[in-house]
């Protein structure tokens, strides 16, 4: 059977006192996503998700400091990321880490871009979307 083994830790057996660990996540990282009505189909996978910055539809455009997508070559803006970022990289960046291969300013711009992506529309449906803050 083809199935990815889940990494959920085994439940403590009855009688053992060791309680299961429960993390409350990060303030900026959401733990819920609602399934939206979707006519169009989105791209990425939920677990091993890759997020192109900017998304495929606007490949080649630059990312401004505030995270918005601007025409290529706009002064003060950053070129598109050479490689799509993995879900885990994005999760860490959204919780305050840094995207691999980016300068501090570049990372700020890219993270703002990812925060603005709306799950299920032009953005993506993936693990990172679970980490996106609401509102």
């Amino acid at each position: 059977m083809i199935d990815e083994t889940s990494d959920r830790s085994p439940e403590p057996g009855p009688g053992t006192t060791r309680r299961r660990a429960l993390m409350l996540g990060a303030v900026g990282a959401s733990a819920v996503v609602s399934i939206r009505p979707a006519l169009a189909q989105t791209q990425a996978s939920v677990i091993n998700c890759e997020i192109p910055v900017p998304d495929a539809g606007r490949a080649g455009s630059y990312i401004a400091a505030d995270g918005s997508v601007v025409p290529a070559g706009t002064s003060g803006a950053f070129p598109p990321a050479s490689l799509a970022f993995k879900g885990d990289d994005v999760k860490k960046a959204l919780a305050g880490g840094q995207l691999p291969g980016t300068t501090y300013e570049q990372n700020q711009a890219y993270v703002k871009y990812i925060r603005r992506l709306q799950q299920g529309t032009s953005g993506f449906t993936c693990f990172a979307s679970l980490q996106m803050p609401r509102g």
Partner: protein
Amino acid sequence: MKHVFTVRIGPAGFRVGSDWRAPIRALERLYAGYPAPEDNIPDFTVRLFAARPWRHWLRPSITLGGDFVLPEAAPLPLSQGVLAAEMAMNLQMAMGQRRYLLLHASAVEREGRAVLMTGLSGAGKSTLAALLAARGWRLMGDEFALIDPASGLVHAFPRLVSLKNRAIEVVRKALPEGRFGPLLAGTPKGDIQHLVPDSRSIARMGDPARPALLLFPRFGFDNAERGLGPSEVFVRLTQASTNYVALGERGFAAMTRLVREVAACAIDYPDADAAITHVERLWATL
């Protein structure tokens, strides 16, 4: 309307009305072997009409109408009448289907069990389905797979297979005696030619199958296979369904059952032959 064509494709009956004769004549030729709607009452009405009276003759362009419409759908030239009818019928299923959970996926069947291939347009859904049909699988559909929430079975929707650009000659090579529609050049999606499903697929369109394998193909990448966890499959399938939310609890039950019971795998492949090897190898492991 002046010219009318009716047909049943799988469980859905259609009535197509047109201001012009040509599209209806073409549909009658291509759908020759298909049954009429049950009791002659179609589930959906489609209208191909001239938005402005002069558009009937002057550079005639077809506006798509029917029970369900997308306001911003662009008109098509009269020469692409078959494509206009296909898009309008797809739209009725996508927006109006309420009995079956509709997946944007192609499906083929062997010994009562089905492989479903869902993915972006251009991921090779239709091509793969046509090529597998050429190798003896029964074509259930190249665009929509219909899941009956009550039984969990997949029902066929064997519409004309819509082949685009390079896929046209790949499939023509695999099916030298296949019946094809006219070559429609310069459509919004490039060159399109329709393949008429073989008589067996049409005759057995009423036979459902048990879904056994869910594939997420990506054309044009190096060979790769990756098993997918249930939650990833769930989200991908809800995004590949046009009526998941509208079906409410029935949709949830059907989708959860699919995700729990059916093996799922993402396959990347550089060309058609590689894809067929993937499918038949994975099928053997079930």
